[in-house]
């Protein structure tokens, strides 16, 4: 049980590092998905100790569904950004500053 929590903690940290360092918007989306998966791992680990594991697993199904929606909308933003600025490099998104 604790081994799964340790694993998901590590994965969350890796995902966070990815989101923080990558300049490419698609890699940020990737890092975000890694963090979400770490969360799902935790949900399942705790569902095994809960009185009704089936309910815990429905949470993970919902979380997978929401993560898929989030990836879809995130990609829509990236494509809109690509069409407007012809780059997916987040550091170039500074037009608000001007």
């Amino acid at each position: 049980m604790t081994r799964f929590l340790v694993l998901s903690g590590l994965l969350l940290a890796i995902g966070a590092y990815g989101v923080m360092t990558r300049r490419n918007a698609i890699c940020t989306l990737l890092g975000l998905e890694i963090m979400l998966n770490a969360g799902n791992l935790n949900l399942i680990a705790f569902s095994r100790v809960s009185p009704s594991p089936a309910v815990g697993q429905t949470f993970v199904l919902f979380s997978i569904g929401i993560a898929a929606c989030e990836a879809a909308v995130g990609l829509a933003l990236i494509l809109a950004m690509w069409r407007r600025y012809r780059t997916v490099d987040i550091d170039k998104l500074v037009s608000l500053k001007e």
Partner: protein
Amino acid sequence: MLMSQRDAGDLIFILGFALVGVAAPAALLFIGRWLRPSSPGKVKMEPYECGLPQASPPRRLFRIRYYAFALLFVIFDVETVLLFASAPVLKRFGAAGLWSVGAFVALVTLALVYAWRMHLLEWE
């Protein structure tokens, strides 16, 4: 580490099949390495453009219809998984279950109708 024998067996089978699925073709490719001639001439290394020298580096086209298709696919993917979870027990829940799953399917079909009316299903 508590793990039911059944799941361990399933996982070992899935990994075994994946392993053989990747290893067998790789082995064939590796064996073929000695049987095959290998003389990469300059022209052969060029990407294939019906014989003409490469006109332009692969430029990217941007069509939103590709994205609209991928988006609807992901949304219906999630719906299909949830329907697969609820399908086996639908009979047990009687009319109430029918109405609830019906409402869920109606909501997602609304998304399809919306994309249809916004003319995003056409492949112009």
